[in-house]
């Protein structure tokens, strides 16, 4: 799978449901905000990743294809 999880940092309110569903890829910092592991989502976690995206109460999580990303970093 060549998709990565991205967080809309402005929308994110630190609900943390994404970290509950996908602890393999998402952990929470001391204030409840997500830290997403770098790299594309492994195939066996794809379904959970989609669920995490759907379940975010504020739609802050999204799956983006790697080719579409233009990072300034």
């Amino acid at each position, binding site marked *: 799978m060549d998709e990565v999880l991205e967080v809309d940092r402005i929308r994110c*309110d630190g609900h943390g*449901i994404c970290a509950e569903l996908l602890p393999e890829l998402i952990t929470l910092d001391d204030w409840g905000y997500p830290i997403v592991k770098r790299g594309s989502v492994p195939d066996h976690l794809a379904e959970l990743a989609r669920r995490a995206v759907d*379940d975010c*109460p*504020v*739609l802050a999580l999204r799956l983006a294809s790697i080719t579409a990303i233009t990072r300034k970093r």
Partner: protein
Amino acid sequence: MNDTLLWYATRGAGVVSLVLLTGVVVLGIVSVMRWQTASWPRFLTTGFHRNLALTTLIFLEIHVVTAVVDPFTALGWEAALVPFSSPYRRFWLGLGVVGIYLLLAIIVTSLLRPLFGPRIWRAVHWLAYAMWPVALIHSIGTGTDPRFVWMLVIEAICVGSVIAAVAWRVSRGAPPTAWRQLPANAAQVKKWT
């Protein structure tokens, strides 16, 4: 088909829908309050909230269809689709129709949330606080069972749960997102040098 069976189906499905909707509203509040324990993660709350709402639709469908096709009630489809058009208990039944439309709006915007965006979704979702009382009053007004004790007990539990949940929410004070309301640069620190 046995008319009595249809009649019982309508009433039964109606009561079940009310109980389910009560559960949905309470779970919605539990979700917003970000409540969780070591063995009850938050995705269980949101998952049940969604699944109970969708299950309610099934029982509501049974409730409406059996009510309409039941020859005893003399309700046509118009009564079910157009609010306040039924000759039988016009106001109370009409509320039920309104309630279903409110619920459908909430569910549709939720299922298609990426399409509608968070703001519209949120605004429509607040209608839940109108939808539930409408459903409750419809049930009291049109129901033929209100004088049975078991029905009163069920209604009391539903009302009590929602009142308790709302009181809990109101008692919270500042929500976890209160920090957003502070203006940017609120704490002005002198520029260094």
